[in-house]
Protein backbone atom coordinates (compact mmCIF):
# COMPACT_ATOMS: atom_id res chain seq x y z
CA UNK A 1 0.00 0.00 0.00
CA UNK A 2 2.63 2.51 1.04
CA UNK A 3 4.91 1.79 -1.91
CA UNK A 4 2.07 2.20 -4.32
CA UNK A 5 1.02 5.40 -2.64
CA UNK A 6 4.58 6.71 -2.73
CA UNK A 7 5.02 6.08 -6.45
CA UNK A 8 1.64 7.65 -7.19
CA UNK A 9 2.58 10.70 -5.16
CA UNK A 10 5.86 11.03 -7.07
CA UNK A 11 4.03 10.86 -10.38
CA UNK A 12 1.50 13.42 -9.25
CA UNK A 13 4.27 15.74 -8.11
CA UNK A 14 6.00 15.37 -11.47
CA UNK A 15 2.83 16.15 -13.40
CA UNK A 16 2.24 19.15 -11.15
CA UNK A 17 5.78 20.40 -11.79
CA UNK A 18 5.38 20.07 -15.56
CA UNK A 19 1.98 21.76 -15.42
CA UNK A 20 3.32 24.61 -13.30
CA UNK A 21 5.91 25.32 -15.98
CA UNK A 22 3.34 25.11 -18.78
CA UNK A 23 0.90 27.38 -16.97
CA UNK A 24 3.70 29.80 -16.05
CA UNK A 25 4.64 30.00 -19.72
CA UNK A 26 1.01 30.46 -20.79
CA UNK A 27 0.39 33.25 -18.30
CA UNK A 28 3.41 35.03 -19.77
CA UNK A 29 1.69 34.91 -23.16
CA UNK A 30 -1.41 36.72 -21.92
CA UNK A 31 -1.90 40.29 -23.14
CA UNK A 32 0.41 42.93 -21.68
CA UNK A 33 2.85 42.49 -18.84
CA UNK A 34 3.06 44.08 -15.38
CA UNK A 35 5.28 46.91 -16.64
CA UNK A 36 2.87 47.70 -19.49
CA UNK A 37 0.12 48.00 -16.89
CA UNK A 38 2.26 50.33 -14.79
CA UNK A 39 2.97 52.45 -17.86
CA UNK A 40 -0.72 52.59 -18.68
CA UNK A 41 -1.56 53.92 -15.23
CA UNK A 42 1.38 56.33 -15.21
CA UNK A 43 1.72 58.11 -18.58
CA UNK A 44 4.75 60.10 -17.41
CA UNK A 45 6.93 57.01 -17.15
CA UNK A 46 9.88 57.07 -19.54
CA UNK A 47 10.96 54.02 -21.56
CA UNK A 48 14.23 54.06 -19.63
CA UNK A 49 12.38 53.83 -16.33
CA UNK A 50 10.31 51.00 -17.72
CA UNK A 51 13.43 49.14 -18.80
CA UNK A 52 14.94 49.67 -15.35
CA UNK A 53 11.80 48.32 -13.69
CA UNK A 54 11.87 45.33 -16.01
CA UNK A 55 15.42 44.62 -14.86
CA UNK A 56 14.50 45.08 -11.20
CA UNK A 57 11.61 42.62 -11.46
CA UNK A 58 13.71 40.27 -13.57
CA UNK A 59 11.30 40.44 -16.49
CA UNK A 60 14.18 40.76 -18.95
CA UNK A 61 15.49 37.33 -18.03
CA UNK A 62 14.76 34.17 -20.03
CA UNK A 63 11.55 32.27 -19.27
CA UNK A 64 13.21 29.29 -17.60
CA UNK A 65 15.16 31.48 -15.19
CA UNK A 66 12.10 33.50 -14.26
CA UNK A 67 10.17 30.27 -13.70
CA UNK A 68 12.87 28.88 -11.41
CA UNK A 69 12.84 32.07 -9.35
CA UNK A 70 9.08 31.90 -9.08
CA UNK A 71 9.26 28.22 -8.13
CA UNK A 72 11.85 28.87 -5.45
CA UNK A 73 9.63 31.49 -3.86
CA UNK A 74 6.48 29.41 -4.32
CA UNK A 75 7.94 26.40 -2.55
CA UNK A 76 8.65 28.65 0.39
CA UNK A 77 5.01 29.71 0.43
CA UNK A 78 5.47 33.06 -1.30
CA UNK A 79 3.14 33.24 -4.29
CA UNK A 80 3.51 36.97 -4.75
CA UNK A 81 1.00 39.80 -4.62
CA UNK A 82 -2.34 40.06 -6.33
CA UNK A 83 -2.30 43.14 -8.53
CA UNK A 84 -6.03 43.81 -8.37
CA UNK A 85 -6.57 43.06 -4.68
CA UNK A 86 -3.19 44.51 -3.57
CA UNK A 87 -2.86 41.70 -1.05
CA UNK A 88 -0.74 38.54 -0.94
CA UNK A 89 -2.17 35.86 -3.22
CA UNK A 90 -2.69 33.38 -0.40
CA UNK A 91 -4.78 35.89 1.56
CA UNK A 92 -7.06 36.37 -1.44
CA UNK A 93 -7.34 32.66 -2.10
CA UNK A 94 -8.34 31.64 1.42
CA UNK A 95 -11.92 32.98 1.53
CA UNK A 96 -12.49 32.08 -2.12
CA UNK A 97 -11.45 28.52 -1.39
CA UNK A 98 -13.93 28.26 1.46
CA UNK A 99 -16.76 29.58 -0.73
CA UNK A 100 -15.95 27.08 -3.49
CA UNK A 101 -15.68 24.24 -0.99
CA UNK A 102 -19.22 24.94 0.20
CA UNK A 103 -20.54 25.04 -3.36
CA UNK A 104 -18.68 21.99 -4.61
CA UNK A 105 -19.32 19.90 -1.52
CA UNK A 106 -23.03 20.69 -1.73
CA UNK A 107 -23.27 20.13 -5.47
CA UNK A 108 -21.15 17.01 -5.36
CA UNK A 109 -23.01 15.39 -2.47
CA UNK A 110 -26.38 16.13 -4.03
CA UNK A 111 -25.23 14.81 -7.42
CA UNK A 112 -23.87 11.57 -5.94
CA UNK A 113 -26.98 10.95 -3.80
CA UNK A 114 -29.28 11.71 -6.71
CA UNK A 115 -27.39 9.46 -9.09
CA UNK A 116 -27.15 6.55 -6.61
CA UNK A 117 -30.90 6.61 -5.99
CA UNK A 118 -32.02 7.24 -9.57
CA UNK A 119 -29.37 5.00 -11.16
CA UNK A 120 -30.27 2.10 -8.86
CA UNK A 121 -34.00 2.52 -9.39
CA UNK A 122 -33.49 2.56 -13.15
CA UNK A 123 -31.26 -0.52 -13.04
CA UNK A 124 -33.79 -2.59 -11.08
CA UNK A 125 -35.99 -2.87 -14.16
CA UNK A 126 -34.00 -2.11 -17.30
CA UNK A 127 -36.33 -1.07 -20.08
CA UNK A 128 -39.17 -0.16 -17.71
CA UNK A 129 -40.86 3.23 -17.66
CA UNK A 130 -38.80 4.42 -14.71
CA UNK A 131 -35.62 3.47 -16.54
CA UNK A 132 -36.80 5.45 -19.54
CA UNK A 133 -37.62 8.50 -17.44
CA UNK A 134 -34.31 8.40 -15.58
CA UNK A 135 -32.32 7.91 -18.79
CA UNK A 136 -34.06 10.88 -20.40
CA UNK A 137 -33.29 13.05 -17.37
CA UNK A 138 -29.67 11.91 -17.41
CA UNK A 139 -29.40 12.70 -21.11
CA UNK A 140 -30.77 16.17 -20.45
CA UNK A 141 -28.27 16.64 -17.60
CA UNK A 142 -25.35 15.65 -19.81
CA UNK A 143 -26.49 17.86 -22.68
CA UNK A 144 -27.48 21.07 -20.95
CA UNK A 145 -25.10 24.06 -21.07
CA UNK A 146 -24.45 24.82 -17.39
CA UNK A 147 -24.52 28.59 -17.80
CA UNK A 148 -27.87 28.39 -19.55
CA UNK A 149 -29.33 26.17 -16.81
CA UNK A 150 -28.20 28.80 -14.30
CA UNK A 151 -29.81 31.49 -16.45
CA UNK A 152 -33.11 29.62 -16.59
CA UNK A 153 -33.05 29.07 -12.82
CA UNK A 154 -32.46 32.79 -12.27
CA UNK A 155 -35.25 33.60 -14.69
CA UNK A 156 -37.74 31.21 -13.11
CA UNK A 157 -36.94 31.08 -9.40
CA UNK A 158 -35.45 34.52 -8.81
CA UNK A 159 -37.22 36.83 -11.26
CA UNK A 160 -40.58 35.26 -11.97
CA UNK A 161 -41.42 33.39 -8.78
CA UNK A 162 -39.18 35.49 -6.51
CA UNK A 163 -38.53 32.52 -4.23
CA UNK A 164 -34.75 32.73 -4.12
CA UNK A 165 -32.05 35.38 -4.58
CA UNK A 166 -30.41 35.60 -8.01
CA UNK A 167 -26.89 35.77 -6.68
CA UNK A 168 -24.47 36.80 -3.97
CA UNK A 169 -23.50 35.12 -0.72
CA UNK A 170 -25.92 36.70 1.73
CA UNK A 171 -28.16 39.73 2.10
CA UNK A 172 -26.56 42.90 3.41
CA UNK A 173 -26.93 43.04 7.18
CA UNK A 174 -28.09 39.45 7.32
CA UNK A 175 -25.59 36.65 7.55
CA UNK A 176 -27.60 33.99 9.29
CA UNK A 177 -27.26 30.35 8.29
CA UNK A 178 -30.70 30.31 6.69
CA UNK A 179 -29.82 33.36 4.60
CA UNK A 180 -26.52 31.87 3.44
CA UNK A 181 -28.21 28.57 2.58
CA UNK A 182 -30.89 30.36 0.59
CA UNK A 183 -28.20 32.02 -1.48
CA UNK A 184 -26.39 28.73 -1.93
CA UNK A 185 -29.43 26.73 -3.04
CA UNK A 186 -29.66 27.72 -6.72
CA UNK A 187 -25.89 27.46 -7.40
CA UNK A 188 -25.72 24.06 -5.69
CA UNK A 189 -28.76 22.83 -7.59
CA UNK A 190 -27.32 24.02 -10.91
CA UNK A 191 -24.00 22.33 -10.27
CA UNK A 192 -25.63 19.11 -9.01
CA UNK A 193 -28.06 18.72 -11.90
CA UNK A 194 -25.43 19.33 -14.55
CA UNK A 195 -23.06 16.85 -12.90
CA UNK A 196 -25.56 14.15 -11.95
CA UNK A 197 -26.44 13.27 -15.55
CA UNK A 198 -23.12 11.61 -16.19
CA UNK A 199 -23.04 9.91 -12.77
CA UNK A 200 -26.53 8.46 -13.24
CA UNK A 201 -25.51 6.81 -16.50
CA UNK A 202 -22.54 5.12 -14.89
CA UNK A 203 -24.39 4.03 -11.75
CA UNK A 204 -27.17 2.54 -13.87
CA UNK A 205 -24.77 0.71 -16.19
CA UNK A 206 -22.72 -0.64 -13.28
CA UNK A 207 -25.81 -1.74 -11.32
CA UNK A 208 -27.31 -3.50 -14.35
CA UNK A 209 -24.08 -5.48 -14.70
CA UNK A 210 -23.74 -6.30 -11.03
CA UNK A 211 -27.37 -7.33 -10.53
CA UNK A 212 -26.80 -10.09 -13.12
CA UNK A 213 -23.85 -11.55 -11.23
CA UNK A 214 -23.75 -14.89 -9.48
CA UNK A 215 -23.20 -13.56 -5.99
CA UNK A 216 -26.38 -11.50 -6.27
CA UNK A 217 -28.32 -14.57 -7.37
CA UNK A 218 -26.82 -16.47 -4.43
CA UNK A 219 -27.87 -13.74 -2.04
CA UNK A 220 -31.41 -13.86 -3.41
CA UNK A 221 -31.45 -17.64 -3.26
CA UNK A 222 -30.49 -17.50 0.38
CA UNK A 223 -33.59 -15.48 0.99
CA UNK A 224 -32.16 -12.00 1.40
CA UNK A 225 -34.75 -9.30 0.84
CA UNK A 226 -34.46 -7.18 -2.30
CA UNK A 227 -33.48 -4.12 -0.29
CA UNK A 228 -30.67 -5.95 1.41
CA UNK A 229 -29.51 -7.50 -1.88
CA UNK A 230 -29.29 -4.12 -3.53
CA UNK A 231 -27.73 -2.25 -0.66
CA UNK A 232 -25.32 -4.79 0.77
CA UNK A 233 -24.44 -7.01 -2.19
CA UNK A 234 -24.87 -5.03 -5.36
CA UNK A 235 -24.23 -1.37 -4.58
CA UNK A 236 -20.78 -1.85 -3.12
CA UNK A 237 -19.59 -3.74 -6.18
CA UNK A 238 -21.22 -1.28 -8.51
CA UNK A 239 -19.37 1.53 -6.76
CA UNK A 240 -15.98 0.45 -8.11
CA UNK A 241 -16.39 1.76 -11.67
CA UNK A 242 -18.50 4.64 -10.38
CA UNK A 243 -15.77 5.89 -8.04
CA UNK A 244 -13.34 6.22 -10.96
CA UNK A 245 -15.76 8.27 -12.98
CA UNK A 246 -16.70 10.43 -10.03
CA UNK A 247 -13.08 11.14 -9.13
CA UNK A 248 -12.07 11.75 -12.72
CA UNK A 249 -14.97 14.17 -13.10
CA UNK A 250 -13.46 16.50 -10.51
CA UNK A 251 -11.93 18.67 -13.21
CA UNK A 252 -15.32 18.99 -14.90
CA UNK A 253 -16.94 19.74 -11.56
CA UNK A 254 -14.45 22.54 -11.02
CA UNK A 255 -15.28 23.92 -14.44
CA UNK A 256 -18.95 23.78 -13.47
CA UNK A 257 -18.15 25.64 -10.25
CA UNK A 258 -16.37 28.34 -12.26
CA UNK A 259 -19.47 28.86 -14.39
CA UNK A 260 -21.98 28.72 -11.52
CA UNK A 261 -19.93 31.11 -9.41
CA UNK A 262 -19.69 33.54 -12.30
CA UNK A 263 -23.43 33.29 -13.00
CA UNK A 264 -24.54 33.64 -9.37
CA UNK A 265 -21.90 36.22 -8.39
CA UNK A 266 -20.32 34.00 -5.76
CA UNK A 267 -16.76 34.98 -4.82
CA UNK A 268 -15.30 31.48 -5.09
CA UNK A 269 -12.11 30.09 -6.54
CA UNK A 270 -13.59 29.60 -10.03
CA UNK A 271 -14.79 33.19 -10.28
CA UNK A 272 -11.47 34.31 -8.81
CA UNK A 273 -9.56 32.53 -11.59
CA UNK A 274 -11.90 33.92 -14.22
CA UNK A 275 -11.67 37.48 -12.87
CA UNK A 276 -7.90 37.29 -12.50
CA UNK A 277 -7.49 36.25 -16.15
CA UNK A 278 -9.92 38.98 -17.16
CA UNK A 279 -8.05 41.58 -15.09
CA UNK A 280 -4.48 40.51 -15.97
CA UNK A 281 -3.81 39.58 -12.36
CA UNK A 282 -0.98 37.21 -13.28
CA UNK A 283 0.10 35.97 -9.85
CA UNK A 284 -3.42 35.23 -8.74
CA UNK A 285 -4.33 33.45 -11.99
CA UNK A 286 -1.19 31.33 -11.78
CA UNK A 287 -1.81 30.31 -8.17
CA UNK A 288 -5.50 29.61 -8.77
CA UNK A 289 -4.84 27.44 -11.83
CA UNK A 290 -2.13 25.49 -10.08
CA UNK A 291 -4.31 24.91 -7.07
CA UNK A 292 -7.12 23.64 -9.30
CA UNK A 293 -4.66 21.27 -11.00
CA UNK A 294 -3.33 20.06 -7.66
CA UNK A 295 -6.78 19.28 -6.28
CA UNK A 296 -7.81 17.50 -9.48
CA UNK A 297 -4.69 15.35 -9.44
CA UNK A 298 -5.15 14.61 -5.74
CA UNK A 299 -8.70 13.42 -6.35
CA UNK A 300 -7.36 10.90 -8.86
CA UNK A 301 -4.96 9.50 -6.26
CA UNK A 302 -7.84 9.24 -3.80
CA UNK A 303 -9.83 7.30 -6.39
CA UNK A 304 -7.01 4.75 -6.62
CA UNK A 305 -6.99 4.37 -2.85
CA UNK A 306 -10.76 3.99 -2.78
CA UNK A 307 -10.50 1.02 -5.15
CA UNK A 308 -8.53 -0.97 -2.65
CA UNK A 309 -11.05 -0.21 0.03
CA UNK A 310 -14.08 -1.09 -2.10
CA UNK A 311 -12.63 -4.16 -3.71
CA UNK A 312 -10.37 -6.29 -1.51
CA UNK A 313 -9.29 -8.23 -4.62
CA UNK A 314 -7.35 -5.20 -5.82
CA UNK A 315 -4.16 -5.19 -3.84
CA UNK A 316 -2.20 -1.99 -3.78
CA UNK A 317 0.98 -3.51 -2.39
Amino acid sequence: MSRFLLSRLWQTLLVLLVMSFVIYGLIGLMPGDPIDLMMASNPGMTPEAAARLRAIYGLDQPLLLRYLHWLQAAVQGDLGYSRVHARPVLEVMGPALWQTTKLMLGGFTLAVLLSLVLGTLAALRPGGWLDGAVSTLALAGVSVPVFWLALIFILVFAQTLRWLPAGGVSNVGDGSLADVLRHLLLPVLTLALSTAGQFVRYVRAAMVDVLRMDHVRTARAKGAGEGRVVRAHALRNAMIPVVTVVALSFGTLFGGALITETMFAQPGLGKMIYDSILGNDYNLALAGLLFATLVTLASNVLADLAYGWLDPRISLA
Partner: protein
Amino acid sequence: MSAGVGMAVVATDAPISPWRLRLRRFRRQRMGMAALGLLVLIVLFCLAAWPVQAWLGVDPTTTDLLGRFDPPGPVHLLGTDDAGRDVLMRLMVGGQVSLLVGLIATLAGAVVGVAVGVAAGYLGGRLDSALMRFTDGVLALPLLPLLIVLGALDLTKLGFSQEFARSGAAGFWRVVVVITLFDWTAVARVVRAATLALKGREFVTSARASGGSAWYVVLAHILPNVAGPMIVAITLTVGRVILLESVLSFLGYGIVPPTPSWGNMLNNAQELTIQAPMLAVLPGLFIFLTVIAVNLLGDGLRQAFDPRTE
Protein backbone atom coordinates in the same frame (compact mmCIF):
# COMPACT_ATOMS: atom_id res chain seq x y z
CA MET B 1 -28.14 -13.76 -37.77
CA SER B 2 -28.17 -17.50 -37.54
CA ALA B 3 -25.17 -19.40 -38.79
CA GLY B 4 -26.01 -22.56 -40.65
CA VAL B 5 -25.70 -25.62 -38.48
CA GLY B 6 -26.52 -28.28 -41.07
CA MET B 7 -24.47 -28.98 -44.12
CA ALA B 8 -26.96 -28.05 -46.79
CA VAL B 9 -27.66 -24.47 -46.01
CA VAL B 10 -29.16 -22.65 -48.93
CA ALA B 11 -28.14 -19.04 -49.02
CA THR B 12 -31.49 -17.35 -49.30
CA ASP B 13 -30.35 -13.87 -48.30
CA ALA B 14 -28.08 -11.99 -50.58
CA PRO B 15 -24.81 -11.29 -48.78
CA ILE B 16 -24.75 -7.86 -47.22
CA SER B 17 -21.78 -5.79 -46.21
CA PRO B 18 -21.23 -4.97 -42.53
CA TRP B 19 -21.93 -1.31 -43.21
CA ARG B 20 -25.25 -2.05 -44.84
CA LEU B 21 -26.09 -4.26 -41.88
CA ARG B 22 -25.24 -1.48 -39.47
CA LEU B 23 -27.29 0.99 -41.46
CA ARG B 24 -30.22 -1.40 -41.41
CA ARG B 25 -29.91 -1.85 -37.65
CA PHE B 26 -29.66 1.89 -37.13
CA ARG B 27 -32.80 2.54 -39.18
CA ARG B 28 -34.76 0.40 -36.75
CA GLN B 29 -33.80 2.64 -33.81
CA ARG B 30 -36.59 5.07 -33.23
CA MET B 31 -34.65 7.40 -30.92
CA GLY B 32 -31.58 7.45 -33.12
CA MET B 33 -33.64 8.19 -36.22
CA ALA B 34 -35.60 10.92 -34.40
CA ALA B 35 -32.31 12.48 -33.29
CA LEU B 36 -31.02 12.38 -36.84
CA GLY B 37 -34.21 14.04 -38.03
CA LEU B 38 -33.90 16.77 -35.40
CA LEU B 39 -30.28 17.39 -36.41
CA VAL B 40 -31.27 17.69 -40.07
CA LEU B 41 -33.95 20.22 -39.09
CA ILE B 42 -31.45 22.25 -37.06
CA VAL B 43 -28.95 22.27 -39.93
CA LEU B 44 -31.68 23.32 -42.37
CA PHE B 45 -32.69 26.11 -40.01
CA CYS B 46 -29.10 27.39 -39.89
CA LEU B 47 -28.72 27.17 -43.66
CA ALA B 48 -31.95 29.13 -44.13
CA ALA B 49 -29.94 32.22 -43.18
CA TRP B 50 -29.17 32.99 -46.81
CA PRO B 51 -32.71 32.79 -48.24
CA VAL B 52 -34.12 34.69 -45.24
CA GLN B 53 -31.49 37.38 -45.65
CA ALA B 54 -32.41 37.77 -49.31
CA TRP B 55 -36.12 37.70 -48.60
CA LEU B 56 -36.44 40.07 -45.64
CA GLY B 57 -33.33 42.13 -46.30
CA VAL B 58 -32.00 41.71 -42.74
CA ASP B 59 -28.48 40.73 -41.78
CA PRO B 60 -26.95 39.48 -38.53
CA THR B 61 -24.58 42.36 -37.79
CA THR B 62 -26.41 45.62 -38.59
CA THR B 63 -27.12 47.38 -35.31
CA ASP B 64 -30.00 49.76 -34.70
CA LEU B 65 -29.79 51.57 -31.39
CA LEU B 66 -33.26 53.01 -31.80
CA GLY B 67 -34.71 49.54 -32.26
CA ARG B 68 -33.33 47.70 -29.21
CA PHE B 69 -35.39 44.81 -27.81
CA ASP B 70 -38.06 45.21 -30.50
CA PRO B 71 -40.86 42.62 -30.26
CA PRO B 72 -41.34 40.21 -33.17
CA GLY B 73 -42.66 41.95 -36.26
CA PRO B 74 -42.95 41.54 -40.04
CA VAL B 75 -39.30 42.47 -40.69
CA HIS B 76 -37.64 41.11 -37.56
CA LEU B 77 -39.55 37.85 -37.24
CA LEU B 78 -38.15 37.16 -33.76
CA GLY B 79 -37.53 40.79 -32.81
CA THR B 80 -34.20 42.46 -32.12
CA ASP B 81 -31.55 42.10 -29.43
CA ASP B 82 -29.82 44.55 -27.09
CA ALA B 83 -28.02 46.20 -30.01
CA GLY B 84 -31.02 46.20 -32.34
CA ARG B 85 -29.75 43.29 -34.41
CA ASP B 86 -32.12 40.77 -35.96
CA VAL B 87 -32.46 37.82 -33.57
CA LEU B 88 -33.60 35.24 -36.14
CA MET B 89 -30.64 35.97 -38.41
CA ARG B 90 -28.23 35.79 -35.50
CA LEU B 91 -29.69 32.47 -34.39
CA MET B 92 -29.22 31.06 -37.89
CA VAL B 93 -25.73 32.43 -38.55
CA GLY B 94 -24.67 31.80 -34.95
CA GLY B 95 -25.82 28.23 -35.40
CA GLN B 96 -23.67 27.87 -38.50
CA VAL B 97 -20.67 29.07 -36.52
CA SER B 98 -21.38 26.85 -33.52
CA LEU B 99 -21.99 23.75 -35.63
CA LEU B 100 -18.91 24.43 -37.74
CA VAL B 101 -16.69 24.76 -34.66
CA GLY B 102 -18.22 21.55 -33.33
CA LEU B 103 -17.52 19.65 -36.54
CA ILE B 104 -14.05 20.96 -37.34
CA ALA B 105 -12.69 20.75 -33.79
CA THR B 106 -14.12 17.25 -33.40
CA LEU B 107 -12.64 16.02 -36.68
CA ALA B 108 -9.25 17.56 -35.92
CA GLY B 109 -9.33 16.05 -32.44
CA ALA B 110 -10.39 12.72 -33.92
CA VAL B 111 -7.36 12.66 -36.21
CA VAL B 112 -5.09 13.19 -33.19
CA GLY B 113 -7.05 10.68 -31.13
CA VAL B 114 -6.97 7.96 -33.79
CA ALA B 115 -3.25 8.49 -34.38
CA VAL B 116 -2.48 8.26 -30.67
CA GLY B 117 -4.86 5.34 -30.11
CA VAL B 118 -3.59 3.24 -33.02
CA ALA B 119 0.07 4.00 -32.24
CA ALA B 120 -0.39 3.06 -28.59
CA GLY B 121 -2.50 -0.02 -29.25
CA TYR B 122 -0.65 -1.41 -32.26
CA LEU B 123 2.96 -0.63 -31.41
CA GLY B 124 2.47 -1.28 -27.69
CA GLY B 125 5.31 -1.47 -25.19
CA ARG B 126 6.84 1.67 -23.79
CA LEU B 127 5.25 3.89 -26.39
CA ASP B 128 1.86 2.60 -25.30
CA SER B 129 2.40 3.31 -21.64
CA ALA B 130 3.93 6.72 -22.36
CA LEU B 131 1.06 7.75 -24.63
CA MET B 132 -1.59 6.49 -22.24
CA ARG B 133 0.02 8.22 -19.26
CA PHE B 134 -0.04 11.40 -21.28
CA THR B 135 -3.70 10.85 -22.21
CA ASP B 136 -4.62 10.26 -18.58
CA GLY B 137 -2.69 13.37 -17.62
CA VAL B 138 -4.60 15.51 -20.13
CA LEU B 139 -7.89 14.02 -18.92
CA ALA B 140 -7.07 14.93 -15.33
CA LEU B 141 -6.52 18.64 -15.99
CA PRO B 142 -9.04 21.29 -14.95
CA LEU B 143 -10.23 21.81 -18.51
CA LEU B 144 -12.28 24.99 -18.42
CA PRO B 145 -9.80 27.31 -16.61
CA LEU B 146 -7.06 26.16 -18.97
CA LEU B 147 -9.25 26.75 -22.00
CA ILE B 148 -9.94 30.26 -20.75
CA VAL B 149 -6.21 30.96 -20.37
CA LEU B 150 -5.57 29.69 -23.88
CA GLY B 151 -8.49 31.78 -25.11
CA ALA B 152 -6.95 34.84 -23.45
CA LEU B 153 -3.48 34.45 -24.96
CA ASP B 154 -2.12 37.39 -26.88
CA LEU B 155 -1.63 36.02 -30.40
CA THR B 156 0.87 38.74 -31.29
CA LYS B 157 3.21 37.35 -28.62
CA LEU B 158 3.13 34.09 -30.58
CA GLY B 159 4.33 35.85 -33.72
CA PHE B 160 1.01 36.49 -35.44
CA SER B 161 0.39 39.86 -37.02
CA GLN B 162 -1.63 42.49 -35.19
CA GLU B 163 -4.11 42.41 -38.05
CA PHE B 164 -4.72 38.66 -37.89
CA ALA B 165 -4.95 38.63 -34.10
CA ARG B 166 -7.92 41.03 -34.23
CA SER B 167 -9.75 39.39 -37.12
CA GLY B 168 -12.84 37.26 -36.81
CA ALA B 169 -11.01 34.35 -38.43
CA ALA B 170 -8.46 34.34 -35.61
CA GLY B 171 -11.28 34.09 -33.08
CA PHE B 172 -12.81 31.15 -34.94
CA TRP B 173 -9.60 29.18 -35.46
CA ARG B 174 -8.40 29.89 -31.96
CA VAL B 175 -11.45 28.15 -30.47
CA VAL B 176 -11.01 25.24 -32.85
CA VAL B 177 -7.32 24.79 -32.00
CA VAL B 178 -7.81 25.27 -28.27
CA ILE B 179 -10.56 22.66 -28.07
CA THR B 180 -8.68 20.25 -30.35
CA LEU B 181 -5.69 20.38 -28.00
CA PHE B 182 -7.73 18.76 -25.25
CA ASP B 183 -10.68 16.89 -26.69
CA TRP B 184 -8.96 13.99 -28.44
CA THR B 185 -8.62 11.82 -25.33
CA ALA B 186 -11.90 9.92 -25.48
CA VAL B 187 -11.33 8.86 -29.09
CA ALA B 188 -7.74 7.87 -28.32
CA ARG B 189 -8.79 5.59 -25.47
CA VAL B 190 -11.58 3.92 -27.43
CA VAL B 191 -9.39 3.38 -30.49
CA ARG B 192 -6.52 2.02 -28.40
CA ALA B 193 -8.78 -0.50 -26.67
CA ALA B 194 -10.27 -1.65 -29.98
CA THR B 195 -6.83 -1.87 -31.61
CA LEU B 196 -5.47 -3.94 -28.74
CA ALA B 197 -8.34 -6.39 -29.10
CA LEU B 198 -7.81 -6.65 -32.87
CA LYS B 199 -4.05 -7.05 -32.68
CA GLY B 200 -4.29 -10.60 -31.40
CA ARG B 201 -6.80 -11.75 -34.00
CA GLU B 202 -5.77 -14.29 -36.65
CA PHE B 203 -6.37 -12.12 -39.69
CA VAL B 204 -4.05 -9.46 -38.33
CA THR B 205 -1.37 -12.01 -37.46
CA SER B 206 -1.75 -13.49 -40.92
CA ALA B 207 -1.37 -10.10 -42.58
CA ARG B 208 1.78 -9.44 -40.57
CA ALA B 209 3.16 -12.90 -41.22
CA SER B 210 2.76 -12.43 -44.95
CA GLY B 211 5.05 -9.45 -44.70
CA GLY B 212 2.54 -6.59 -44.49
CA SER B 213 4.11 -3.39 -43.20
CA ALA B 214 2.71 -1.70 -40.11
CA TRP B 215 1.14 0.98 -42.32
CA TYR B 216 -0.55 -1.60 -44.50
CA VAL B 217 -1.89 -3.64 -41.59
CA VAL B 218 -3.21 -0.55 -39.84
CA LEU B 219 -4.85 0.91 -42.93
CA ALA B 220 -6.26 -2.29 -44.37
CA HIS B 221 -7.12 -4.33 -41.29
CA ILE B 222 -7.13 -2.27 -38.11
CA LEU B 223 -8.84 0.99 -39.07
CA PRO B 224 -11.83 -0.54 -40.92
CA ASN B 225 -12.54 -2.74 -37.91
CA VAL B 226 -12.04 0.03 -35.37
CA ALA B 227 -14.45 2.26 -37.28
CA GLY B 228 -17.57 1.27 -35.31
CA PRO B 229 -16.54 2.33 -31.80
CA MET B 230 -14.48 5.16 -33.30
CA ILE B 231 -17.49 6.72 -35.01
CA VAL B 232 -19.53 6.44 -31.82
CA ALA B 233 -16.80 8.14 -29.77
CA ILE B 234 -16.44 10.87 -32.38
CA THR B 235 -20.19 11.52 -32.45
CA LEU B 236 -20.30 11.88 -28.67
CA THR B 237 -17.33 14.26 -28.87
CA VAL B 238 -19.29 16.62 -31.13
CA GLY B 239 -21.79 17.29 -28.36
CA ARG B 240 -19.08 17.99 -25.83
CA VAL B 241 -17.25 20.32 -28.21
CA ILE B 242 -20.41 22.32 -28.94
CA LEU B 243 -20.93 22.73 -25.19
CA LEU B 244 -17.31 23.83 -24.71
CA GLU B 245 -17.50 26.35 -27.53
CA SER B 246 -20.73 27.78 -26.17
CA VAL B 247 -19.38 28.28 -22.66
CA LEU B 248 -16.09 29.77 -23.91
CA SER B 249 -17.94 32.17 -26.21
CA PHE B 250 -20.34 32.99 -23.39
CA LEU B 251 -17.45 33.88 -21.08
CA GLY B 252 -15.92 36.03 -23.82
CA TYR B 253 -12.97 33.78 -24.73
CA GLY B 254 -14.40 31.92 -27.71
CA ILE B 255 -16.12 33.30 -30.77
CA VAL B 256 -15.91 37.07 -30.40
CA PRO B 257 -18.60 39.51 -31.55
CA PRO B 258 -19.54 40.76 -34.09
CA THR B 259 -19.46 37.15 -35.33
CA PRO B 260 -22.45 35.54 -33.62
CA SER B 261 -22.47 32.11 -32.02
CA TRP B 262 -25.12 30.52 -29.85
CA GLY B 263 -22.79 30.96 -26.89
CA ASN B 264 -21.89 34.61 -27.30
CA MET B 265 -25.50 35.58 -28.00
CA LEU B 266 -25.93 35.07 -24.25
CA ASN B 267 -22.95 37.28 -23.39
CA ASN B 268 -24.91 39.87 -21.43
CA ALA B 269 -27.33 37.25 -20.26
CA GLN B 270 -28.14 38.80 -16.90
CA GLU B 271 -29.45 41.94 -18.59
CA LEU B 272 -31.38 39.83 -21.10
CA THR B 273 -33.34 37.88 -18.48
CA ILE B 274 -34.82 41.13 -17.27
CA GLN B 275 -35.40 43.00 -20.53
CA ALA B 276 -36.11 40.22 -23.01
CA PRO B 277 -36.38 36.75 -21.46
CA MET B 278 -36.83 35.05 -24.83
CA LEU B 279 -33.37 36.25 -25.91
CA ALA B 280 -31.90 34.44 -22.91
CA VAL B 281 -33.89 31.29 -23.61
CA LEU B 282 -33.64 30.76 -27.37
CA PRO B 283 -29.87 30.43 -28.06
CA GLY B 284 -29.45 28.14 -25.06
CA LEU B 285 -32.39 26.04 -26.19
CA PHE B 286 -30.74 25.56 -29.58
CA ILE B 287 -27.50 24.45 -27.92
CA PHE B 288 -29.43 22.12 -25.62
CA LEU B 289 -31.46 20.52 -28.44
CA THR B 290 -28.44 20.12 -30.70
CA VAL B 291 -26.35 18.44 -28.01
CA ILE B 292 -29.24 16.17 -26.99
CA ALA B 293 -29.72 15.15 -30.62
CA VAL B 294 -26.01 14.47 -31.11
CA ASN B 295 -25.82 12.40 -27.92
CA LEU B 296 -28.93 10.39 -28.86
CA LEU B 297 -27.45 9.82 -32.29
CA GLY B 298 -24.26 8.55 -30.64
CA ASP B 299 -26.24 6.16 -28.43
CA GLY B 300 -28.21 4.93 -31.44
CA LEU B 301 -25.04 4.33 -33.43
CA ARG B 302 -23.52 2.49 -30.49
CA GLN B 303 -26.43 0.09 -30.39
CA ALA B 304 -26.47 -0.33 -34.15
CA PHE B 305 -22.72 -1.03 -34.28
CA ASP B 306 -22.50 -3.29 -31.27
CA PRO B 307 -23.01 -6.91 -32.33
CA ARG B 308 -23.92 -7.87 -28.78
CA THR B 309 -27.21 -5.97 -28.73
CA GLU B 310 -30.45 -7.67 -29.78
